[in-house]
């Protein structure tokens, strides 16, 4: 290189270095933004309570899941039985508390299956493009063309009703939306310079996708997953409602709703409380999902 001013040797004078004192990771900033949204906090509180009750069900529930007592059938909500009892004399509150275990399991695991399988397919499709992209996405379109509850019903019907099969069925039927979301974000990120920089230092495709593209595509995936848990719980409840899901006497909310339906004219509480629980859970997850969407993408917020 030619004439260079020797006074500036390329080092910065230390005095002008100004860095924020607090080291904030980007996730921490997301949390700060999320905290500002009251709705999201209400949603989060509902989810935390639910998780809490699932973990400590043994301590919270006054009775077991199948403690029948035909002498106290159809007891209305009272001090002794907070939500009343059902047609077999079981304490509904206890069953709902235990039911949260099943619902949360189904919700999170089904979404896990869907996000993992759909996400990897979407990432591959978006990153490699061309025929592979076309092939994968058309297969997803086929899945998408079948109503998801119908697809889930046929999968469970083929595999037989059990907790694991419900998870698989719900997972597969909600896979296409993850594939689409991940593919779309991969497409926008893969042309950025830092991906090129990674190629320049010799990173292989797997590393580029996992370390460079996916972490930057997390925001929409997290939002979709949060909302997806709600959908999965609802689908599982729906499957149980029509008898294809979790089998009695296991206290699944959907099947409790189904069995309570026969007595709804005389004993409203049997069907109402499981239904309310489902509603509040879905409501909480949706609130949290919406809040996360705003918090993760500050550009959307005004």
């Amino acid at each position: 290189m030619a004439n260079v001013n020797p006074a500036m040797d390329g080092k910065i004078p230390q005095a002008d270095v100004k860095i924020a004192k607090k080291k904030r990771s980007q996730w921490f900033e997301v949390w700060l933004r999320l905290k500002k949204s009251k709705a999201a906090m209400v949603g989060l509180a509902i989810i935390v309570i639910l998780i809490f009750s699932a973990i400590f069900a043994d301590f919270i529930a006054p009775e077991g899941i199948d403690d029948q007592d035909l002498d106290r059938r159809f007891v209305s909500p009272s001090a002794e039985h907070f939500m009343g009892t059902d047609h077999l004399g079981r304490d509904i509150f206890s069953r709902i508390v235990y039911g949260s275990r099943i619902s949360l399991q189904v919700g999170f695991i089904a979404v896990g299956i869907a996000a993992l399988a759909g996400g990897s397919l979407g990432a591959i499709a978006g990153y490699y493009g061309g025929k592979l992209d076309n092939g994968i996405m058309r297969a997803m379109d086929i899945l998408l063309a079948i109503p998801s509850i119908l697809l889930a019903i046929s999968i469970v019907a083929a595999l037989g009703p059990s907790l694991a099969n419900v998870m698989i069925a719900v997972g597969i039927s909600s896979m296409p939306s993850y594939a689409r979301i991940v593919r779309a974000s991969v497409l926008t990120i893969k042309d950025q310079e830092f991906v090129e920089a990674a190629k320049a230092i010799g990173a292989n495709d797997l590393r580029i996708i996992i370390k460079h593209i996916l972490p930057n595509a997390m925001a929409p995936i997290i939002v979709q997953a949060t909302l997806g848990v709600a959908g999965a719980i609802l689908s599982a409840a729906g499957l149980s409602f029509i008898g294809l899901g979790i089998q009695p006497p296991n206290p699944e909310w959907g099947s409790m709703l189904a069995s309570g339906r026969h007595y709804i004219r005389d004993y409203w509480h049997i069907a109402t409380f499981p239904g309310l629980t489902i509603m509040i859970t879905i409501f909480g997850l949706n609130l949290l999902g919406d809040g996360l969407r705003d918090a993760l993408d500050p550009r959307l917020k005004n």
Partner: protein
Amino acid sequence: MAKKLIEVKNLKKYFETKRGLLHAVDGVNFYINEGETLGLVGESGCGKSTTGRVVLRLLEATDGEIFFEGKNILDYSKQQMREMRRQMQIVFQDPFASLNPRMSVAQIIAEPLEINKVYSSKAEMNKKVKELMDTVGLAERLVNVYPHELDGGRRQRIGIARALALNPKFIVQDEPVSALDVSIQAQILNLMDRLQKELGLTYLFISHDLSVVKHVSDRIAVMYLGKVVELSDYKSMFKSPLHPYTQALLSAIPVPEIGVKRERIILEGDVPSPINPPEGCRFYGRCRHRQDICKQQTPQLKDMGNERYVACHFAGNL
């Protein structure tokens, strides 16, 4: 004569577009001697950044040859190329886009070392990262900071440290300072100059800023619409440009003296589209010396002596 580190022969890169083949790089020839800086100038869209990326095989060339220390790297397999990448690195234009926002400074600088398994122990690697940060003038306490917390100059230093991590011989500088403030530009340019001297690096310096290119380059290649029209050392080029395009380009540099007026050559018309360009000289439509031969024959780079090359039918007579 100095040893040639990089030699590019008849390099072509075409992109398929809906309206036809886009000739981004169309038969480019140049060479870079060891330890020198070749400035690659040209206006936006003339293919200079594409050339830089094709030379590193970040984009695959359509045709041509790229020799690195006498070996054609276009023949290399993916695996060989991965080895090769240790030798040749790139610093990007936009320090806001070229750093992964989810990785900390240390992670970014350590990544090339990690991928190429340079060190077996984590301690050695951390030591090297600190060394690199010191080399490029980044304070040690910035290790765990994320790029979005830093200004453009410091981000560009991270980019440089990443490029240096594997001890390359050759670095493509793709407009490394055009996104920075003028005061920061000087710091970064001086840093790169110091590194070149200390580490014996060879640069391909891509820029549209003539004053910057003049400042850093030993030799300059001028590109117009996918072709190199003039290749020469910087002194002779600024004293007596041979190609009409270079002449027009240099006449546009303002003279920092009161009362002195330079004769400006005003180019007419626009840069023609690089999609399916016609035969003949690319500069034909805008050249004030054009004649019939320019429309029929594409001028090739001619040796004018003293390592000066010009692609013009009337070179030396203008």
